[in-house]
């Protein structure tokens, strides 16, 4: 997953650095209401990444946390300015390619029918819709088939998925139903955590549909 993203970026001629000290953006604690603990971890994140020119994340959810919620998390905090700087240069992978670099055709080839799941953070926090689709449409051999409920939540929701496992699973089942209706072989997304949820239900149902993170398609030749 991460490897595919590095491959795509390096093929485009970018120098990729992976700070080995990185851990988490702080979202799990933030979403559960533990902002003090979230701030401690987010502060560590800011230190680790402050020197980068651009930060690209293989997750719309983590990107949304850093870009949209650090401002609130660091309000009146000595690190507010440093956090804002990091927020401003953090991009989701497909967003970086399409919006920042203006690239849609990566010369990829991938044989198969794919349906795309708009993760909630990508769709509603980062306002991404066409970016991943433009990239997928340019992939040779790939057929994109839209599902009816492409923008509906998969039910993951971080700690929600284990605090309310039944609601979360039932939401996932509705999502998977919509995916199955397309007859696609693969379901892709900008958010690995959604794919973990969707994949968990697909596997439990012994469905032949596979989950695949978007960079893995884009890195295929």
């Amino acid at each position, binding site marked *: *997953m*991460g*490897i595919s993203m590095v491959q795509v970026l390096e093929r485009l001629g970018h120098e990729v*650095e*992976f*700070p*080995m*000290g*990185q*851990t*988490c953006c*702080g979202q*799990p*604690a*933030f*979403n*559960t*209401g*533990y*902002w003090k*603990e*979230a701030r*401690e*971890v987010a502060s*560590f994140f800011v230190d*680790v990444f402050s*020197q980068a020119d651009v930060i690209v994340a293989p997750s719309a959810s983590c990107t949304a946390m850093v870009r949209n919620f650090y401002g609130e998390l660091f309000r009146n905090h000595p690190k507010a300015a440093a956090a804002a700087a990091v927020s401003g240069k953090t991009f989701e992978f497909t967003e970086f390619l399409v919006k920042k670099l203006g690239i849609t055709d990566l010369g990829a080839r991938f044989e198969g029918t794919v349906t795309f799941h708009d993760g*909630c953070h990508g*769709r*509603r*926090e980062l306002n991404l819709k066409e970016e991943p689709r433009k990239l997928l449409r340019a992939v040779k051999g790939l057929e994109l088939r839209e599902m009816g409920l492409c*923008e*509906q*939540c998969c*039910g*993951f*929701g*971080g700690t*929600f*998925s*284990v*605090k*309310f*496992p*039944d*609601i*979360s*699973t*039932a*939401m*996932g089942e*509705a999502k998977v139903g919509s995916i199955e209706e397309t007859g696609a072989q693969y379901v892709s997304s900008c958010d690995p955590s959604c794919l*973990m*949820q969707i*994949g*968990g*239900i*697909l*596997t*439990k149902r012994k469905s032949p549909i596979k989950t695949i993170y978007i960079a893995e398609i884009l890195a295929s030749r």
Partner: protein
Amino acid sequence: MSHAAQFDRDARKKAFDLRHRAVINKATTTYSTTVAKTKAAFLDWEFGRQNIRQRKWEAINHLDRYLEEFEKNARERGTIVHYAKDAPHARTIVLDLCRAKNVRKLVKSKSMLTEEIHLNEFLEEHGVKPVETDLGEYIVQIRKEKPYHIVTPVMHLTKEDIDQTFHELLGSPLGSSAEDLTAIARKELRQEYLTADMGITGANFVVAETGMISLTENEGNARLSVSLPRIHVVICGIEKVIPKLSDIPNFIPMLAVSGTGQQVSCYNTLVGGPRQPGETDGPEEMHVIFLDNERSRVLANAEQREILHCIRCGACLNACPVFRTIGGHAYGTTYQGPIGSVLTPLLRGYPGWKHLSYGSSLCGACTQMCPANIHLHHHLLKNRRNAVNSGAGKWYEKILFIGWSMVMRCPFIYGFGNFFGRMGQKMMRLLRIEGTILDPAQNWSKTRAVGTIAGKSFHAWWRERQEVNGHYKTSRPESHS
């Protein structure tokens, strides 16, 4: 049973009820399609949302001024204005009025606020018969249920269910058509209207400038409740006041589209007071009861005050995948869905109700649909933070996140944790305990497969690559410059 335990139990029951899922999905899908079509007729829907937000902001942030302005203007035309601090106070005002005016029966149009204060049960206990006249509310009342949805009280029932209900309770023949069923209810209700002494309505908007009440409905039952009985009583929250009459045309289409996907609702009525000298019809008396019931506490909270901008259209419920999954009754509240999950803990306290703010994947579909542009899912986050800060969090979660924070700030231990996770998963699979009650991750694995953690981590791949390339760097924060 605690509210949280009740929520857990009822939500679980509905989550895998496939009949329920099908009924609600059909209703919400029809709704979404209709709304999308009507919205497309707007030149600029986003402008409409900003417009509502602005007007509501003005009203809510100067609520004291507008309430007084309304009171003054309403009084001039003979309306009597009451203020109720809480539910018992509001109920007492209504009952006192009933006793003073010898009211034995009253008709009601749809009002969630009367649900909030449990008015019907209270009146019945005290010998006054309340009759719901909105068709959906009427069905709910005769079935002795609670409304399933703030706008669509019987969204969970099919035509066949209602046919069955009418057959059992009103003696109508089975197999009646929708038109027949409506006619049956109409006939029953017409008799009630003619013998009612009081009409109770809510208010969609309360106009300060003119001292008027604005009512939006589709059945004409609200205007009949206003005009036929000799006393008209309005009960509404203090947040319903808007400054000007010219605000009304801005709100009404937004409410109609978001509520039901109509361009405009069938009946929109402005009520300006009781019968005036020289007029031949209308009620002899009109009362307006403003209810606080902890709303002023929300008003004092600058960060979350915008929740009072809500116009109760129900769009957030229809858009919410949690609502679609568990249905309206599982919430155990007057207001269901996202607005209820934000508002209930604010009005009734975090200790009993914070679970509702956690019962959401924070997907934001509610915020996207809200015509008042209230950032509902961000308020869920704020509720969660406030619940934790007020000491209402769970003790083990606190310990968990303190530990988590320590690990996340120490990459070495984090790396070790990843290694441990790999080993752990192999062990669990070897011992076949994945998904059983021995599995520490059973809340995930009981219903979902666990993805296999990659054999080699990205960290390991990267480290090897750097070593091969000969420029291995340690990237601890202090050395990463």
